[in-house]
Every structure is written in structure tokens, then in C-alpha cells.
């Protein structure tokens, strides 16, 4: 089921719902319809023990930021999700026929994949009695993006949900997420979120 958070989609476009005019709202609605008929959200996950390293099962996780994030967790999920190749094609098509719609579609798709991930994670959290950390993806902080391939291999993501990476470790299809999700550990404060671990202080999308 495709859902988008309007406020989030607008944020990705660099504006707020308050600034949006009727034309923009109409485009967002069009984008949502397109996604509903083209996106095929799928996810896969694997629960593994976290041992010293930290190591997620057999995979050593590099970088201080993820180690700090997973502090106290004894297990974690390897996780991957995608909206599928057709969603990418839909955006590519819009880029040729209506670039304004493409921009809105891009933002809507970004929101859609986040919403989908949140839904899946919510059900995983239920299983774990509510103790699930936020998603930590390759590329966040000093968690090397190069570890993308290992994470995908661990999950057999390519076979299960058709998710691959390019030579430069970009996920394809593009509207996709991979992450390590700690179980248990120190409960996250309300204000803590992924932006806090990121070094790009001048990012227009940074949440404070």
C-alpha cells in the first residue's frame, strides 16, 4: 500500500504545505496516483545476533557512528526495502514529458519509501516489544557506503526483492532503502534522529 506524508514530500521539494498552491497540490495528487499504480513496495529482513566488532552475524560493521548507535543492542535486523523498478521508470518518463511533475514525483516517491519502511519497522518493533532503534543505513555518518554490497548479499536482496547496487554503491532501483536496525539497547530520545549523526550541517533538508 502506497502512502505519502504530504508535509514530508513538500519538505523534499524545499517548501511547506502552507506555501503550496492549488496547482502544486494537484501535482502531488497526480504523483500519488502514479505511484499507486506503478510502485510495488517490497521489503526483506533478517534478524541476526550483534557481537563484538560490532558484527552483525558474519558482517563486520565499520565506523564509530554505527557502533555508538547500536550500543547496548545484542541483536539487530538487516533490512532492505524498495518501491521497485517501475517507480523509477515512472519518474524517468515524467522527466521527459513534464519536469515539474518529475520533481514532485521524486519527492513523493522519497516520502513513499520512507512511509513504507516505517510501516514495516513498526510491525518489527511490535515483535520486539517496542524496542527498535531507528534505521541506520550505509552512508550515514562514517558507516561506509562501500558496505552496501555486503548488506545486500547478507539479505539476498537481489533475489528476494530485486534490489541491487551499482559499481559506485548506489541502490537500484533508486527509490530504495537498506539499513541496520538495532534491537533493544539504549532507548532513543524523542529528539534523536538520523540527521544528528550526519556531518552535512548545511543540508537544506536537515531536521533540527
Amino acid at each position, binding site marked *: 500500500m502506497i502512502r505519502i506524508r504530504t508535509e514530508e514530500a513538500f519538505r523534499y521539494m524545499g517548501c511547506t504545505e502552507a506555501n503550496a498552491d492549488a496547482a502544486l497540490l494537484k501535482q502531488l495528487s497526480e504523483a500519488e496516483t502514479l505511484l499507486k499504480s506503478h510502485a510495488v513496495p517490497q521489503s526483506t529482513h533478517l534478524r541476526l545476533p550483534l557481537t563484538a566488532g560490532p558484527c552483525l552475524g*558474519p558482517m563486520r560493521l565499520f565506523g564509530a557512528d554505527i557502533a555508538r548507535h547500536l550500543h547496548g543492542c545484542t541483536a539487530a535486523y538487516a533490512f532492505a526495502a524498495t518501491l521497485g523498478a517501475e517507480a523509477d521508470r515512472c519518474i524517468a518518463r515524467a522527466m521527459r514529458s513534464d519536469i515539474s511533475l518529475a520533481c514532485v514525483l521524486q519527492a513523493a516517491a522519497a516520502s513513499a519509501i520512507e512511509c513504507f519502511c516505517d510501516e514495516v519497522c513498526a510491525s518489527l518493533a511490535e515483535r520486539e516489544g517496542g524496542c527498535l532503534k531507528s534505521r541506520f543505513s550505509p552512508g550515514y555518518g562514517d558507516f561506509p557506503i562501500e558496505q552496501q554490497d555486503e548488506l545486500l548479499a547478507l539479505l539476498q536482496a537481489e533475489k528476494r526483492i530485486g534490489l541491487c547496487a551499482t559499481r559506485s554503491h548506489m541502490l537500484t532501483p533508486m527509490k530504495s532503502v537498506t539499513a541496520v536496525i538495532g534491537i533493544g539497547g539504549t532507548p532513543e530520545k524523542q529528539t534523536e534522529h538520523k540527521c544528528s549523526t550526519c556531518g*552535512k550541517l548545511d543540508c537544506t533538508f536537515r531536521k533540527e
Partner: protein
Amino acid sequence: MSCSELFGRELLIFDGAMGTMLQAAGLQPGEKPDLWNITHPETVRDIHCAYLRAGANILKTNTFGCNAWKLAGSGHGSEEVAARAVQIAKNAIAVENETQGPAFVAMDVGPIGRLLSPLGDLDFEEAVALFSAPIAAGKAAGADLVLIETFSDAYELKAAVLAAKEAAPDLPLCATVTLDKRGKLLTGGDVDVVCALMEGLGVDALGLNCGLGPVQMLPILERLRESSSLPLILNPNAGLPREEAGQTVYDLGPTEFAHWMEQAAHKGAWLIGGCCGTTPAHIEAMAEKCRAIVPPKVTQKTHTVACSYGSALYFADGAPALIGERINPTGKPRMKQALRDGDLDLLLREGIRQQEAGAQALDVNAGLPEIDEPAMLCRLVQELQGVCDLPLQIDTADPVAMEKALRIYNGKAIVNSVNGKEAVMEAIFPLVKKYGGVVVALTLDDAGIPETVEGRMEVARRILARAAAYGIPKEAFLFDPLTMAVSAGADNGKVTLACVRRLREELGVRVSLGVSNVSFGLPARERLNTAFFTLAMGAGLSAAIMNPFSEPMISAWRAASTLLGLDANCAAYLAAYGGEAETKTEKTAPGGEMPLHEAVLRGFKQEAARAAQDASGTPMEIIESGLIPALNEAGRRFEQGSLFLPQLLMCAEAAKAAFAVIRTRLGEGASTNRGTVVLATVEGDVHDIGKNIARALLENYCFQVVDLGKDVPAEAVAEAVERTGAKLVGLSALMTTTVPGMARTIGLLREKGLDCRIMCGGAVLTESHALRIGADCYVPDAMASVRYAMEVYGAAMNPE
């Protein structure tokens, strides 16, 4: 004896899962199973032996991930691993010399693990090469057949099948795909697409594996049987997976699995086995239950079907298929210029618009003498398939271009065309045999176009006979008896229509026409074309190459369909024409025309086009006084934060619509070119929306943009700058991993001493970093790139 002689004659038992068994023997998550051929060969052999004892006739080699990409860094090559794997399987057969029935070794080929371009970054031929190496090694080591399995993308599947056909041409070829619950590939194709594609490429058996259990596969198997003329394969998982105590467990035990596989055999599966979660116990129970079953005979289907990766098009009794004719430079100066410039935007938009207008397939023609047609046609086909899922009709007279395009086409194409000339048939039929295709066959030959109906029928018969010698059946054809201009001969229309009838009735072949030619030389062409089209529909036309923007043609098509009994309850007709006449546009300002400036600023495309049409003054005056000030204002508001990106882009789209109108008033040769800008997303990077936005705005400001696309090697950027003499290059990169590609590109441009400035953009960049890698300017957003371009080309941003 070749095992393919047994396909469809004797029930054959495939083995079960290898991965599952290796995991039970200690394989870790993420560890490469293929390497166990080197490190634990006895374990692998013992698993094969267990399956043989369970009754398997065909062993799949432990080579699912055996390709150079997946094995990179392991210290072992794909050829080495493939050869070892085949040896181990053959060894197992030698050890278990009391197998029940024949035993064969299938060289197992799984997906590479990367998405092909244009969605991903793996080049088609690179994929073919990655598949070929281990297959050749497997064949040399004595594999009896090739099994391509667990593919969920039509394009990658095609690459693998071609690789097998080229590296191991004498080995029987089986192909199974993974479909989801809806019966679709991950990239959208359904059962019909899979059958059309696979049968066109000449596999010997096809079916499903993985993803689903036998219960979910049975309904899909039935659909496969309706579509396919080949023996069917079913290798399901042992049911559906669930998590139990941190382990993945499949929910069907051997007895239940065997029960469902028995159903499968009765429903037409001639080769049965198992995938994930199955064990020798599953295979044994299944073999026990099914061994004596004789599945229903395979029947030959006589469909005429073409497909893209995502949709299949049947040419059947019923309303003719509409093939859009508009992507063709003949008589279209703007399209010719676009092809010369290598700017495919115009052609791609035409494709998308034709689809929206109702075209069911698209003719693609890039025939222009001064360009490299094979290269351009291939690029056009690939890019078009990146944005449109309609089957394509490859239209070229150059056999080299036809071969290259058919090879990289994602699906089973319509081939335009073959005819009765010996040389043409000799050139084209082998291509159709190799790559598959529905062939448009023109009833002309070396003696020209026969004047009589019988003359054309004679050519048609000859074409069919020659095709049969290549093993190409009559279902593969769309015969085109040629539409001659009625102005050149009063009976021309009659002759063609009579041919349509006779081709259908006597030869039982499907018929296509390019209807527009009938009116050549006469006025009010659309009236004649429409009537001719309607008459041809009555005579049994199966496909028409036509202009889908012609409202009279489309309505004739709908009306004739309804009259020929093809529209139950007149539903389609009512859906199209019932109710009020559509309002022209909901954006029309009530009571008055909107001036150009306002239309652009408010982002109203249609109003902008109309205003440009009505505006007085020279084209340059209109641009400078109407368009540019509006764009400047929009840009100002954007930079101030009162207008947002999507709204800015709506202004850009409106300006673009106005430009299209103004350009026709400018006439050919006149230029609005402020200067050339080369844009590219750098090598290794596939994100291009930022670059595309920059392009839209730069074009608005009359810059000539040469857009090289994404994942562009540094050399290609340098070549484009040299070729066009551009003074400005714009580079985009999204990620830290691709910024080095940007640095390399800049380095190369400087090294070659090219006289150009370089601007860089992308979310990961900062000004200091951009300057550090040698850029002249950092552009944080699209308006900044316009400002810089103006500066480079010495133009004033706000002419007073």
C-alpha cells in the same frame, strides 16, 4: 542422447535446493555458496548424490552466483568455479551408478546481481559477457544442458539466453523465471511477455522457479500452458517462508509438496523439481508420486505476439492494433535536427504522447543519411524503453542497424521490414530466427510492386516458403500488401483491400497496413485515410501504422470496433463518447486571453502556447520582452523563497511550450542560440534530476544544451566539448563515491587544454570542495547555473 529429446515426452525430475542444503552443512549468511565447489567439493558432491538417490534426473550445478561480478575478490574466476561445479556433478552421477532413469547435469545460471541500464549501470553486452564465460566453461567440462533460473527482469534474462545460445549453441536450453503472486516479473512483465520473449529467442523449455510455493504457482502454470508452445518447468519453493526462532522455515513438508507437484504434473509441468527449502526428502516424495504421470501433451500455439519488457501485444481477430508512426524524421525538420544533434528529448516525448493518445506499439525510425544510424537507433530504442513500456517496431532498411537494434531491444520486437527480395530475406530472416520478432513483410520483390492482387499473393507465398526454410512459421508475420496512392491509380485502394481479404482467408496470416499513403497527392488527406482504415478493418486488418493524434482515425477505430461486434454492450464506445463533450482546458482564464508574461509566470502551459501564437512582433522580440522577463521574475521569486522548485519548473514547462510555438515562426535556420552548454551526470552516478532541471532552465534562456545523460565517462564529456566547441560544461554528482569521477572529468578537460569553463552541482558538493577539484563555479541550484551560463557567454541577465 540429448536430453531435449525427452522434453515433453517423458516426465523429468529436477533436484531440489542446493543453498538450503549447504546452509544445513554450515554455509554462513552472506557467504558465497559457489566457492564451496573449491573448498568443500565432497559436501557438494554428497548433496548431488542424495538428490540422485531421491530420484532426480537433472542435477543443477552449484553455480547460481558464478559470475565475475559476484566472485570478485574471492580469488577464483567464474570459469574455474563453473568447470569444478560441473565436474563434481558428473562425479556424483558416476558414483551413484544406480540412478533411476537418465541423469543429466544442468549448468545453472543465476542473475548477476546488478540492474541493467538504463535503470541501473550494467551495460547489456557486459552482462552477456559475464554470463558467457562460465557457460562456456561449463559446456567444456561436459554439462548436458543449461538452466537459466531465478530471473525476475526480462532484459537480464535476454542477456543470459543470448549468452547461452552463443557460448553453448548445441546445448539444450531451459529458462525459468521468478514471478510474484500477481504473476509478474519485478520489472513488470507477465506470463505472455515471458513466453513471447523466451520462445522468440528459441529456448527448449521454460517455466517458473523460486519466489512462490507450488500452491501459488499452479494458477500461473495454467496461464503458461495457454500461452506457451513449449514443455513447462516448475521448480517451486517448499511453500512460503516464515521466521521461526531467527531461522527461515518453509511451510510445506515432503508429503504436502509432493501432493501439489502431482497437481502440477497433471496441469502440464513436464520438468518438476524444487527450489529454496526443498530437500532430498521432498524430491523423493515427489518422484514417488509423480513418476508414472504422463502430463497433458504440449500443444503448438499459433499466436502472433510481440512484446516489450512489460507488455505483450497480440495481433488477433478483433480490432487492429494501433502502431504509432510518428517517430520518423521524414518530413519533420525539427526531428531531423534533433537526430543530428543527438538530442532525443523530442523523439522520446513524441513516443510518450503517442502512448497517451492510444497507440499500442510504436514505430521507431532514425533513418537520416548523415548520422550513424545503427548507433542512433540503438540509443533511441534503449532510451525509449526507459520511459515507455509499449512494444516497439524497429524500422530501418539497414541490416546492420536492424541487427544491433534487435539485439539490445528489451523484448520481442516488430521487425519493419522484410520483403520478397532475395538479398533482404537472406539478411533479415537469420536475425528474426536469432532474436525473435514479428515480421512486417511487404509484398514486393526485385521486380517491384505487383499491380495485381494475385501478383502480391504470389510474393507473399514465396516469402512464407523461404521463411519456412529458416524455421520461421507464418504466425511470425504481419503481411503488408502495400498501400498505393489512389491519386496515382483509381483501383489502388480496391487492390489493397482485396489483398487484405485474401491474405486473411487464403493464407491465414495477419495483415498490416500503413494507411496514410493512400491519400498522397490529394487534399484533405485525413478524410481518405480514415475511410480507407475503416474499410480495411472490415476486410480483416490486424494492425495499422497510423497517426494516433488523428481524432477521426481513432474514432473510426472505436466505431468500427463496436460495429464489428468487438465491443460488448458498446462499453468502450460509451466510455469514450458518452456524456458531455469534454471541456477544452480547465485552466482557461474565464473571459479573455492571458498575456504571455502572465501565462509563463503562473505556469500555465496551454495559455502560454496560445499567447505565443497570438503575440505580435518578431520572434526575438517576443522572447526578449515576454518570455525572458517572466522567467527572470520566476527565478527571482525562487531565489527569494516565495516560489518553490516545482512551481519554477511549471514556469519552465510553460516557457518551453511557448518556445515550441515561437520556433515554428522563426523558421528553419534561424537560431536563438545564446551558446552551447554540455551537461552530464558523471561516471558511476545514475541520478539525473538536478541535471535535468538545470537543462530545462538553460533551454528556457535559449542556451543550446547538449545533454550527455548519466553515468558519462570523462572521455565522452571531453569529446562532446571538442565536437561542439562548447564554452561551458555542467557536471552533476550526487554522492561522495562519485565526486572522484567529477574530479577526473575536470582533470581530463584541463589536460586536453579545452577552452571551457566548468560548473559543478550536486547535493554532496560544497563550494570549497568544488573549487578544490578544479571547477570554475559551484552552482547550488538551477538558477545559479543559468546565471553562470549568462556570465560565461557575456549576456546580461536582466536587459534593461
